[in-house]
Each structure stands twice: as C-alpha cells, then as structure tokens.
C-alpha cells in the first residue's frame, strides 16, 4: 500500500464477500465508526472477511483507487482507475452511479451538503445471477446510504448542540456581567462565573427552581415585562435590576437568559481568584523552619486563633496563607489586613464596614474585611498596632462572633478564623498596658514563631537559587553564578530584613550585574559597608581566640586523664566539653594528642 503525505486521514474498510467487495471511502474522521458499523450490518450476510486499512490520501486526486489497486490486482479488478471519475461524477450527480461493465456501484454519503464518504460495491460475478444480485445489492446500497445519512444527521445535530453549550459555558465563564440561564421549566441550568460575587448565601442554585433566586411573583412579572427594577434577590437580600431574554427555536420557548445588575450600595466587591502559598512552597530545609512548618501544618485544620510571631520579612503572611490553604476553609476567602498600614480613623470601617451616612463621606453601605472573609480566614498583620478602642471591639467580635458596622445598631454573625501576626513583643505591651490582656489570650491560643534568616543560614543558598532563577526568568537575564566574595557576604550578613531583604539584594544584583559572575560591585552599598565592619569584628575575635589554643589542649588532657583514653572515656570527655565525639577526635588529631 502506498503512503501519501498530504490530505486528510481516511479509513477504508474492505469487506471481502464471496464475490462482492464493499469499500467505504471516508473523507473525514467524523463518524467513521458509525458509518462502518451500519455498512457492515447491512452487508454482513455477504461477508466472510473484513479488512480495515488506515491510509493517507489526497482527496482531490482521489487516488484511493490506486491504493487498493495493488491489493485487487490479483483479482484483476480494474476498480482503481474508475474512482477518479466515479468520485467526481458522484459529486456532480449526487446519485448512485453504476458501471455495469466494470461491475461497480457507487454512492456518496452526505451530512447537510458535505460529502463525508463514498460507499462502493464491486461484484465479480459473471453470469445471469449476477444481474439479479447486483439489483439487490444496489437497493441495499440505497437503503444503507439513507440509514447512514439519517443517523449522521442526528449525530451532527447532537454535536452542534453540545458545541453550542460549550460556547455558552465559555461565555459564561468569561463575561464580567452576571447571567443566569433558566430552562422552560423554570429550573436554573447554569450561571456565569460572576454569579458568585452576588451569591452571599453561597447557595448552589444550579438545578433548583428560579424561586431560589427571586420571588415567584417577580419571576412571572419579569417574563412578562422583560425588565424590572428593584427586584429583591434571595441570595443576598439585595436589590437588582433584572432583564430577560427568551430563547426560542421554531417559535417554541427553550430557555430564558437573565442579566442581573445589582443596585449600587448593595454590591460587595467581588473577590478576585487568589493564588495562595502552600506549605510546600515555603523554602528551607533547616531544622528550625521545618519544625515551624510542621507545627503550622498540625494546627491548620483547627479553627483556633493563631498568633504568628517573627521579625519583619520572615514570611508571616506566607505562613498565614499556607495555614489557610491547608485548612478546611481553603475554598473560602483569605482576607489580609495590615493594621499598621491604615490610619486609625479608617481602620474600624475597614475591619467592620459601615452603613450609608455613618460619617461624612460614607455615601454607601460598605462591607468590612470580616464580612468579606466570612466562612474563610482573616489575617491581621501588625496586631500590636491596634488602638485600645479597636482592641475592645475586636475582642467582642472574637468572643461573640458578631460584627457591627460603623453607624449600624444591628449586628451580623460572622464565621471567621482569625490569624494575627506581630513583630513586637506583645507580652511587654500587655505589661505596660498598651495591649489588652484578655485580647492577647484570645489571639495567642496557638503561637507560632517564625525563625529569622540568621538562625537558618543553611537555607540561604536555596533561597538565593530560587530568587535568582525566578528573577532572571522574569527579567529575561542569563543564569548567573555568585563569586566567592559575594557568597561569603551573603552567608554572613545579619539580614535584619530577613527574606524580604535577601530577595531585594538578589533582585539588585540580577538586574545590575552585566556579566555572568556576580561581584561585589553589583551589591547594594549598604551591604558592602555592613559586611566590612562585620569582617573587621570577626577578625578581632579570631586574633583573641588564636592567642588561647593551649588552654583548650590542657583542658582536654586533663579530662582525658580523668575519664580515661578509651572510647567510653572519650565519650565522657566530649560530653563534658559539650561537643560531639567526632568533633573531639578532630580536636585530638589537630592538637596531636594521642
């Protein structure tokens, strides 16, 4: 069989009959199994063997005949040459084409106006019986063609229907407006992605009656008037303008598409899809950070309040996100607020929301972070900066699980898991009266201390690699390597800004270093100055240490005399010096003590 490189792939099935061959030339991958199944069913009485071949062919040249020519040459059937003419004639005439002399019958199979296959029969009989058989086969061929075409039409309609549904889904996923599709039985079929922004009750309305969304009287009125204002929505108790379009087919109503536009003042800000850190993304293999991660993972799934302690830049918010991500609230919102970043006068409104007219400038009712985080997690960073009055209000919320908007006399229940963080010494603030003791105990149920970078220096290479790879990729820079001097600086720096500072330094030299080797030139100036003074300090220490080596040797000798020089004795010596046994052996080696 010859191979052809252009054109559509096709499948042809050769059913070798006692003396009749049926060939299905498929010009499209679509519905190949349905066509084949029906054709085989029609002609199975004649079949003794079925061959299936996959080939490529050029449809225009219709050289299919050449392909099977070699196969059929044994039977001396010149079927090949005729295909070229047959196919085009078939296309033109749209009829069954007969070539009695060559014993071939051929008919096209269509979906709409497109030919998707040819059905061909070739008989090898050479007697009177042949003609009767041929007539029978011709009528079978006609019937087969009709059956196939009806089946394909139905399949095609179904395919188009599903395609349309898919397109509609894509539209609903991407539109920024709120749409709901309701079928003629008044059941909600699907909603746009933006529906969640108004669905405060978080009801799963798909599959439910429209009365879940609005009152029945409003629905009936909407169907009649097409647009109604101030419709009360049951999913958020808010008011909206709703417009309706009826979808019909052949004048028969199939479904309704409604667009919902919430009235201003009742709309909550939609929460953008969040990409939150997980525990796996916290970098570091040091014992201290791994212990902290393990502790956080253990408590993630509880609802207990967590207080994250750590210096600035240690990753408190990352931990808060990871805890939320690892909890059973992970599908609900994670809302963060830095209490030090917002003026005190606005902080209360930011936290609890306000009603319209609560103060000058409050033109609408606004929900606060607590309500936005309802069902999820609220992370309050720099909790130590909260004013006494807000501390009192926060305490009440923590205790009663209800909030009051500024200017409102009604309270609203909230279900929020609170994670707080501070770099300050809260205990000291409590002692001096700047932080409420009762609030402290409510928030400090599970304290988690995040170690500073200087306490986990073995993680510095991992963090450098991670930041370098990411920042180089973002900036389109080639990979770099760090010179020994720079790596020395990075390993020994105090890192008062912790990971954030390290990230900034890496960013600095990735951007500024022209070559592949990162040198001191591309470090921030403050760092170069800092490290110089540190090196000076260290070298002073070393000088002091080097003047006292003998004391160490004498001490070791004394202990060896006391405990013995066997393995057990050496173990005791090591314990006494608070070093490991291998370290003691090293010292003995270095000091040349036998």
């Amino acid at each position, binding site marked *: 069989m010859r191979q052809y490189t252009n054109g559509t792939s096709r499948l042809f099935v050769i059913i070798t009959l006692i003396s009749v061959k049926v060939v299905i030339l498929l010009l499209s991958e679509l519905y190949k199994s349905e066509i084949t199944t029906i054709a085989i069913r029609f002609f199975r009485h004649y079949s003794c063997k079925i061959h299936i071949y996959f080939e490529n062919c050029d449809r225009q040249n219709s050289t299919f005949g050449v392909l099977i020519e070699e196969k059929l040459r044994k039977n001396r059937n010149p079927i090949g040459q005729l295909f070229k003419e047959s196919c085009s004639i078939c296309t033109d005439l749209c009829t069954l084409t007969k070539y009695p002399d060559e014993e071939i019958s051929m008919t096209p199979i269509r979906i709409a106006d497109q030919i998707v296959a040819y059905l061909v029969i070739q008989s090898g009989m050479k007697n009177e019986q042949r003609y009767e058989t041929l007539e029978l086969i011709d009528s079978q061929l006609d019937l087969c063609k009709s059956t196939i075409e009806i089946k394909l039409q139905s399949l095609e309609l179904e395919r188009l229907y599903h395609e349309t549904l898919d397109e509609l889904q894509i539209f609903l996923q991407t539109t920024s407006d709120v749409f709901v599709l309701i079928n003629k039985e008044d059941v909600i079929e699907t909603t746009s992605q933006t529906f969640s922004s108004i669905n405060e009750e978080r009801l799963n309305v798909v599959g439910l009656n429209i009365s879940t969304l609005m009152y029945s009287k409003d629905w009936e009125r909407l169907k009649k008037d097409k647009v109604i204002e101030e419709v009360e929505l049951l999913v958020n108790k808010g008011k909206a303008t709703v417009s309706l379009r009826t979808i019909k087919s052949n004048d028969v109503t199939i479904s309704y598409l409604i667009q919902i536009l919430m009235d201003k003042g009742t709309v909550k800000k939609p929460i953008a899809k969040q990409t939150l850190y997980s525990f*796996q993304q916290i*970098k570091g293999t040091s014992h201290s950070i791994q212990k902290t991660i393990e502790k956080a993972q253990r408590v993630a799934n509880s609802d207990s309040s967590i207080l994250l302690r750590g210096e600035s830049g240690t990753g408190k918010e990352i931990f808060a996100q990871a805890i939320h991500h690892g909890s059973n609230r992970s599908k609900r919102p994670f809302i963060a607020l830095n209490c030090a970043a917002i003026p005190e006068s606005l902080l209360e409104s930011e936290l609890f929301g306000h009603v319209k007219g609560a103060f000058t400038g409050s033109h609408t009712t606004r929900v606060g972070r607590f309500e936005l985080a309802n069902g999820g997690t609220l992370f309050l960073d720099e909790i130590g900066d909260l004013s006494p009055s807000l501390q009192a209000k926060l305490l009440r919320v923590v205790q009663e699980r209800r909030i009051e908007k500024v200017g409102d006399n009604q309270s609203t229940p909230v279900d929020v898991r609170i994670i707080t963080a501070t770099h300050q010494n809260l205990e000291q603030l409590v002692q001096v009266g700047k932080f409420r003791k009762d609030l402290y105990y409510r928030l400090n149920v599970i304290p988690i201390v995040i170690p500073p970078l200087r306490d986990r*220096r073995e993680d510095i290479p991992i963090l450098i*690699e991670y930041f370098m790879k990411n920042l180089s990729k973002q900036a389109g820079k080639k990979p770099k390597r760090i010179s020994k001097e720079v790596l020395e600086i990075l390993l020994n720096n105090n890192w008062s800004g912790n990971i954030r500072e390290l990230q900034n330094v890496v960013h600095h030299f990735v951007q500024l270093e022209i070559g*592949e080797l990162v040198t001191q030139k591309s470090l921030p100036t403050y760092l170069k100055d800092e490290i110089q003074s540190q090196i000076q300090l260290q070298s002073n220490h070393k000088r002091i240490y080097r003047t006292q080596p003998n004391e160490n040797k004498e001490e070791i000798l004394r202990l060896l005399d006391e405990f013995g020089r066997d393995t057990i004795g050496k173990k005791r010596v090591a314990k006494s010096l608070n070093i*490991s046994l*291998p*370290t003691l052996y*090293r010292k003995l080696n270095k000091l040349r003590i036998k």
Partner: protein
Amino acid sequence: MPWKITKEDIRFISLGARILSCGGGGNTRSMEALILSVMKDDDVIEVIPIHVVRDDWWVTAIGIMGSTVLFNEDLPTGEEMEIGLSLYEKEYNKNVDALISIEIGGVNALAPLLLALKRRLPVIDGDGMGRAFPELYMTTLHLNGIPLAPLSLVTQDNMKFIPSSYTSDQAVHEAKSFANNNGGHSHVVGYGASGDEIKTSMLSGTLYLAYRLGKIITSYGDGIIRLKQIKNAFENSIYGELSLVIKGYVTEVSRWFENEVIVGKLFIESYTKQHNQKIEIQFMNEFFTIHNGESIYRVPDLIVFLHIDSLEPISVVDIQRAQSVIVLVIPAPNILHTTDMLTLIHMKESYQLLKKEEDQ
C-alpha cells in the same frame, strides 16, 4: 545545624544518590554494603551544613574515578580511601579537618562517608557537581579556581601522589593514566582547600537532598503521593521545579561501549495521548539528552529515570526494553548553566553520540 548520619540512613543516601546520578555514577550498592559492614549500630557520621564550615579548616574532596563497570567488578576493600588520605596528609604535610564529595551522583556520594567513618572526620553537606559528570575537572570547585592537585591516587595494589606543582590539566592526565594502568579505576583525594573556599565553591545541601529522596522512595504510600514528595524535595533545594516528561514504556534500547564509556539511545512511548507521545533519549554514562523531533531537554539539567511502580532510579546499564518508566527532568542549579561551566563540561564535544553510533 549539623546533623548526623546513622547506619539506617546509609541506604537512603545510596538510593537518593542514584537519582542524582542521572543514570550513571556507578553501582552504589557495593559501596553501601561496604559502609554497612564497617559501621557499628551506634556509629554516626557528622554532616556539616554550609554555614558551620569553619574558614580555617582544611577540606579535601573524595571520590572514585575511572570505569564504573570495572569498579563494580573489582570491589574495594575499604582501606583505599584511608590510605589515600594518609598519603595526602603525609606528602602535603597538612591535616585534613573535613571531607566533601567530588560529585553527589552515585558511588561518589558514599565514598567520603566511608572515610569519614574510619577517620572520625565530618562530611560537608554539599558536593562539586550537583549530579554526575564524566570528567574529574568538571566541578564547581575547579570552576572557582580550586586546584585539583595535590592529589593522591590509590588502588588495591598501587598508590601515587601528585604534588601541587602540577596544574589541574596535568593532574587529570596523570590521574587518568594511573587509573588506566591499574585496573581502570582509582580512589581520589584532592581539591584541597580552606573551609571558606570550599563553602563558596560547592553546591550546598546535596547530601541532605540525597537522603530525603531516598527516604521518600522507601516510604510506604501511593506512587502519586511519593512522586509529589519527590517534586517538593527538589523544589525545596538548590535545583527547582521538576518536569514530568513522560510516563510510558521503553520500546527500544541500543547500547555499546566506546572508550570504556557506555553509550547508546532508547525510545519511550507514552501510555496516554500527550504532546510527548514518543521520545528518544541518548546516554553516555548518564542520560544526557531528550528528543521528540527536536532536543527538548539536555545536560546539565538532570534527566532521571524512575521505575513506574517503585520509583527506584534506573541506570543506563539497567534500562531494558518493555520497562515501564517515568522520566523526570530537574533544572540544574544556576551555576551549571553559566557559560563558564558549560565550557568546562565541553557541551558540544562531550555530549554527542560519536559517529560510530550513526553507522550502527
């Protein structure tokens, strides 16, 4: 802070080192068995992380060079390393305070552990290659100017010291010659440097990574979960986010020797329809390139073969037709991607199948 390797941990490190060897690195099982035969139940090997390495220490790199196949046939006694270190210290007149692996991929991850055990020395958590490379000078230590010599070489029957007057090129030449004339392989003690030079030239944390990987593979649990843990382990190291290239079966393997190096290629077909339906992988002691019509991954990134069920690593020697495998690619640390390092590992010349293969 420093951590300790116990007897139980040796097999984890052995297994993890096989992953990092990218299909090469020799058979770690023999070295593993040797260490276990020497190590008592309460023995520990101290591992020093980068920030604890003292600047004033003298550190040497330990390894085995030559043919891995011949090494497996001619198992060491366990004394060679100690002899090599003693020779080094005597000839160079310098006591060694700590050891480091020349390369973490394969047998060489374990070589310094055996010596550390015998000599009660600590091992630094890191190495000079981050994977397996074919030549002794293809290290970040060499890239950062640490000379290979002075260098001691030891086999079961012979030993040699190469003084510091030799350049690294000369030392490599001598070392190869020695190995070839003495059974095809040799134990190596070299790349001596102070602690501050070593810690700023090495690839940090690779020994601990090998340990973690080995522990994951031997743990009980679903294969998907363990694969995810392997992914997390690499992401939380100096390497980075790995890619799963293909899950499938080996349809064809061709393998032969050239200059005592195992060379060849193999094909893998995916179980499922995906864009990497069928790929070709070439190897030269290690897996070094993946093609699917064009080269999509290549050295220095790590190409790792894992058995589909056990997730145990498969070497270029062990890969067979009809095996079901997972192929991962792990990005190499930045330093291995720099022009200087690529030049050092002679990207073009070292890593291409020789013409002889194309004739086969």
